[in-house]
């Protein structure tokens, strides 16, 4: 996957990802996607090109358990979220919904950098800077769920947990 970095800071919470005032209204994720990150950057949705990355600091996705957060990001055509660390529920939800999340040192990545992400090998290459950053591997349970295409597909296949 290659795309541009959209840079955010630490503690990007689920209210910023998708505000509560929208998420209660609809299950139409394409509609919600238009409001992704709106409180931090009103132009975000219009700036994103398919396959771009959200790059953030620590504790990305903290706050509520709303699954609308990873879903809306996915529907905003973001290829993966790359962060120094993730909040637990967001991380789980992203895997369950098939949104790739990459945990690595993001301190050298700037807004607009061209990135290449290799999920299989767990590396992020910053093509603008010419550096390679290695990512923390996904726990086996999560790899299994992600490789099945998310938790819905996993349950469709096995009818229950088969981890």
């Amino acid at each position: 996957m290659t795309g541009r970095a959209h840079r955010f800071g630490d503690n990007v919470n689920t209210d910023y990802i998708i505000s509560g005032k929208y998420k209660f209204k609809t299950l139409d994720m394409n509609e919600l996607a238009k409001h992704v990150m709106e409180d931090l950057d009103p132009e975000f949705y219009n700036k994103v090109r398919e396959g771009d990355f959200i790059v953030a600091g620590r504790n990305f996705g903290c706050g509520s358990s709303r699954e609308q957060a990873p879903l809306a990001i996915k529907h905003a055509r973001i290829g993966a979220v790359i962060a120094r660390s993730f909040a637990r529920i967001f991380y789980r939800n992203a895997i369950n919904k098939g949104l790739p999340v990459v945990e690595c040192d993001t301190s050298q990545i700037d807004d607009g950098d061209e990135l290449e992400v290799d999920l299989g090998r767990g590396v992020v290459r910053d093509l603008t800077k010419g550096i390679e950053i290695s990512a923390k591997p996904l726990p086996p349970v999560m790899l299994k769920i992600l490789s099945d295409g998310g938790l819905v597909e996993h349950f469709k296949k096995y009818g229950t947990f088969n981890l």
Partner: protein
Amino acid sequence: MGKTGKTIAEKILSSHSGQDAYANDLVVARVDFVMGQDGTSPLAIKAFNEMNGQRVFDDSKIALVIDHSAPSPNEGVSNLHRMMREFASLHNVKLYDIGEGVCHQLMPERGHVVPGDLVVGADSHTCTYGALGAFSTGVGSTDLAAAMISGHLWFKVPETIKFICHGRLPKGVYSKDLILYLIGQVTADGATYMAAEYTGEAISELSVESRFTISNMAIEMGAKAGLMNVDEKVIRWVRTHSNREPKPVCADEDANYARVLEYDVSDLLPQVSRPHSVDNVAPITEVAGIKIDQAVIGTCTNGRLEDLRVAAGILRGRKIHPRVRLIVAPASKRVYLEAIREGILQDLIEAGAAVVTPGCGPCVGTHNGVPADGETVISTANRNFKGRMGNNKAQIYLASPATVAASSLCGEIADPREFV
């Protein structure tokens, strides 16, 4: 080398998975109760159907709660509420409809949670029931659907960070002040992926209601659970709220902790979280005098009878500042009725409060009091993120019910100790 003792989290996740589990182990565990609310259940129902879910694992162990936007403010929400009602009736699971209260008040109050339970809820503040010695944690909608079908969920057994709180809280200082202080100390991600255990004299002194406030906010330090040891007070509380048998769990003396932090709370001042993050905490002395436009008493953090009683104690026979709107949202119908019987609501209403339907109230910006541009709100809720109450141009401060009540009288953030 013999194995060490276990934390509360390790014990509960062991007993529910049949594995001798320690921190960082992955387990698939049986859940005792599963809960969803109206912001998360519709997506869970969708996932349930996509997973070809035919029936729920046990219809007596699931509840859906309509509390976040209740009564419905628009047709979009109404249709999602209808989806929940239809699912509940089709699968014969308990539905708490509008006006019953906030999910995290209802789960313990209606006896769905007892000590030793493993509970999942599609709401991040599910950690609230840790005060009863239950391992309860928030999950997303797809996890909720998986749990409704299978009665199981996978967990990474968390490491635990232990908070020992010595001393007694001074007059006018409450459990809300204590948890805000602790969050300020460890910051918003200080306990990410971990469970928190809160112990010490300052905790045992607290009523069970006050303890819920602390466990409720464990997630604001990133923790997946906010656990407390079970004592006599908890057992008594649970016996009056549930028919189920408690299975008390306490941490072993020789359990392993990621960190142990000790505090003496005897001189703690009332605490306030400043915009726009919960860990941006200051003692009251640094924020007193900031003008406010709206005050909110309620939510799953501080909408219990005890909280309304404290507020009424300050507001009785007085009038709130003419510039201020005071919104009160009782945490449940039972709290509402009891507050009527005790005369608390009359006192609050006469002082100038607007009482709204039991439920989440204006906490998450869906209805019931969205602030205007540039306005300042002081609230007993648990989050003050930018835009949280529906307007990203508003400022939200978080405090105890006493501080919010005192501030509504003064028209500015005020020290409650002068009023109690």
